[in-house]
């Protein structure tokens, strides 16, 4: 059975982007192929740079003498406890929070939805947590600029970023004292996947990366003095390889194209891999010399992407969930910082992945407390109720001190957070373009619920409040539909 353009386009918007926005509603019946082309084109437009870093961080770090600064690994974690270190950390915390808010803003309002969505994928794929705004900003910029470009360039730039070199301890990787962490993770997490290299490959490739270091504020530099110039043998090749050679050798392995195709398929299509689709995608990805944009076009234009078994079965990540609500509801969010609290409570705090393996995704998003909170958030938006929950503390940022980040106005009595959003319900009703309650319900349901054969009983949603006017009705049913388990899926 072939699906309508509307269903296909909604599916595309939910996977290639962050769901249907109020502005998309009039265009949903467009030819699906044309719709896809527009999304891809919009995502190749000039990028909106995200620059939030206060010069204080960079200036202070640069002004410190090497002794004050200590080991560069201290520029990321909380161990630098001199007054200047503490000031840097606090400013970094504020900067990273702003970076996160600005990026969320792009996800919600930019037309380049595919680029921001795949950037979110790379943000988890190249998981990194350095609590230093200068380095986090640089890494996000590399990821967003190359998100749909050449995977070889993306991989090399990420691997040479200050954030990643510090995070994966390559600063300490020298001929005399090799540190295997960086080389291991490049193969295990970034390219080949576990089981596709030997322990000996790890040892040898680590030697190729010796000397890849960074300098405070100046970024990557190749420290020849500590580079191992001997012959190395890994992945079946022998030679006096350096780090760039190592990455090229990894990319020669077809397995890299397979692994990246699998990861992208899981993120954009279905967590259960389809072997023939992966074979086809990875063959083409390899042949196209790792062109990410072409790979994405392959995915979104294939018949299987629009197969019913792939629609409405993905659990939205917290960022997609929050972004999706903001895209659909015409709303102003007075305290955007509250999104950080929600991200933390729901388990996807941007710039703070749980570990180098990134976020596990799918069912791992859902536990009793995160699900109950998701089902409650829409009514918090509607009623300005207080969110009386506290995220776990993060000692890497806080160093035992109280939470210093200002997260919106607090209610005095309970100390909870308020979402403080105002929604223009009549604008939404106008966009829906329906005049009676039954029609509004049907339209709203088709826009918000992606599960093909959903069991939501209209009678439960309609209710028996006959005195509601159409706007009140629209408001109530929108909130109720967003408070269903089905709405968690896309």
């Amino acid at each position, binding site marked *: 059975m072939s699906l309508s353009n509307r269903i296909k386009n909604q599916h595309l918007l939910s996977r290639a982007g962050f769901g249907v926005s109020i502005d998309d509603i009039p265009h949903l019946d467009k030819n699906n192929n044309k719709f896809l082309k527009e999304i891809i084109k919009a995502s190749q437009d000039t990028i909106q740079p995200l620059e939030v870093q206060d010069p204080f961080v960079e200036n202070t770090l640069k002004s410190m003498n090497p002794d004050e600064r200590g080991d560069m690994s201290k520029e990321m974690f909380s161990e630098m406890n001199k007054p200047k270190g503490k000031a840097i950390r606090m400013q970094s915390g504020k900067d990273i929070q702003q970076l996160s808010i600005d990026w969320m803003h792009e996800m919600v309002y930019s037309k380049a939805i595919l680029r921001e969505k795949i950037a979110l994928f790379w943000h988890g794929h190249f998981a990194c947590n350095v609590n230093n705004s200068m380095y986090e900003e640089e890494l996000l910029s590399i990821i967003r600029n190359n998100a749909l470009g050449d995977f070889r360039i993306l991989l090399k730039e990420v691997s040479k970023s200050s954030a990643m070199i510090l995070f994966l301890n390559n600063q300490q990787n020298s001929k005399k004292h090799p540190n295997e962490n960086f080389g291991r993770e490049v193969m295990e997490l970034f390219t080949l996947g576990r089981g596709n290299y030997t322990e000996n490959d790890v040892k040898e490739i680590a030697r190729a990366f010796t000397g890849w270091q960074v300098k405070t504020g100046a970024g990557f530099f190749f420290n020849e003095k500590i580079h191992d110039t001997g012959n190395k043998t890994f992945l079946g090749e022998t030679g006096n390889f350096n780090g760039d050679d190592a990455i090229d050798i990894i990319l020669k392995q077809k397995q890299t194209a397979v692994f990246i195709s699998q990861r992208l398929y899981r993120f954009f299509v279905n967590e259960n891999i389809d072997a023939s689709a992966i074979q086809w995608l990875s063959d083409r990805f390899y042949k196209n010399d790792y062109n990410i944009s072409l790979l994405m076009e392959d995915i979104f234009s294939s018949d299987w992407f629009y197969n019913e078994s792939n629609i409405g079965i993905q*659990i939205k990540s917290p960022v997609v969930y929050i972004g999706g609500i903001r895209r659909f509801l015409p709303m102003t969010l007075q305290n955007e910082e509250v999104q950080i609290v929600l991200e933390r409570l729901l388990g996807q705090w941007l710039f703070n992945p749980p570990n180098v393996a990134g976020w596990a995704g799918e*069912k791992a998003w859902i536990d009793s407390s995160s699900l109950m909170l998701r089902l409650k958030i829409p009514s918090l938006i509607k009623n300005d109720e207080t969110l009386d929950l506290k995220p776990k503390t993060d*000692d*890497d940022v*806080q*160093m*035992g001190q109280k939470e210093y980040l200002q997260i919106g106005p607090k209610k005095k009595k309970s100390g909870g957070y308020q979402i403080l959003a105002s929604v223009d319900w009549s604008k939404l009703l106008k966009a829906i373009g329906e005049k009676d309650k039954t029609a509004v319900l049907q339209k709203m349901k088709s826009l918000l619920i992606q599960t093909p054969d*959903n069991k939501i009983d209209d009678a439960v949603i309609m209710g028996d409040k006959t005195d509601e006017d159409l706007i009140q009705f629209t408001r109530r049913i929108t909130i109720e539909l967003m408070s*269903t388990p089905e709405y968690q899926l896309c």
Partner: protein
Amino acid sequence: MHIKRRSFIKLSSLATASLFVPKFLNAMAQDENATVPKGNKVLVVLQLSGGNDGLNTVIPFSNDIYYKSRPVIGLQKDKMLTLTDEVGIHSELSFFKSLYDEGNLGILNSVGYPVPDRSHFRSMDIWQSASDSNKYLQTGWIGRYLDEQCMDCEMLTTALEFDDTLSMAGRGVSQKALAAKDPARLLNNSKDAFLKSLTKMYQHDLHSIEHESPVDYLYKTMAATQSSASYIFEKSNSKKTTATYPNTQLGKSMKTISSLILSDANTQIYYVSIGSFDTHVDQIGRQAGLFKQINDAIEAFTNDLKANNKFEDVLLFTFSEFGRRVSQNASKGTDHGTANNMFFVGGGLKQKGLLNNMPDLEDLDAGDLKYKVDFKSVYATVLKNWLGADDEKILGKKMEYLSFV
């Protein structure tokens, strides 16, 4: 549409009469009087978040290196209670001194893991997931215990974390612990009339389910949360303890735990955290304040359990993601270190007092204590000897057993 709780439960009881109704919906018909048999073993995990300074907790006061390394923050003898001729315990932990004297405290020194990590989040991740420091797991050791023990559990009450969000420790592949700072609030959130009507609506259509789809998983979690919340709420009120507890977050949590244990609730693992022990600056006052909270809460809890003959069935242990460096820093504090000590409290300890040697301050690794006991051995021992579980499967490898239980 508002459904009264009683009639709701009746409705779902009818549903369970049908063989075709998937198991998870039985969760809604859970008998709220269900209890566990007498002698059921309970574990309480007390996480000291932020990296507690073990050397100022259990103090080697006869060791010169200790005072040389800590000229300002080294504790003098009048700031501790002596356990042996060489070892003292922080003076705010006076109840732990009593537990030590009566043989209900075990102290295990130098617990850690190879190639230690100094980031809070990574080291906590290693402890909670029970992974090696060069491996990354997406599940926690308690979660994997639930995966093993709880394939058929209809509720989420086997492990209960007292917080608004669930830690990595409680996340399994198919099972997860329940997280709630306060049972009453969880109940309040989950009994929303609209959500209940959704659960009921979904139930009508379940005969069509052949295998669990994502939406089934969500409904199952919602239904299980609703029934678990009401179970925990009812149980924590059915034989509510009459003992007095300190009015701190930890005191309140321990009081709820006690009430649940006294009413023979089916929860086997309770998980509580306190912090922050990240004492880079002005360590003395902060650590003492936190110890006082722990001491008072555990004193009330222990006495309560003893008075109700439950102390033999409960094992509590403490841990922190790392210890701190042997030498103090320039801010009257200590920086991130490695190996640390753990406390074991309970009426059923097989080995008491100091379970091994104090850390060797002469044999350091660049200023840090060397670990002597892998923390995964502690988990293996607790899983096998206390909870009767398959530790090898849960931890993914065979660890050496210790003999404290």
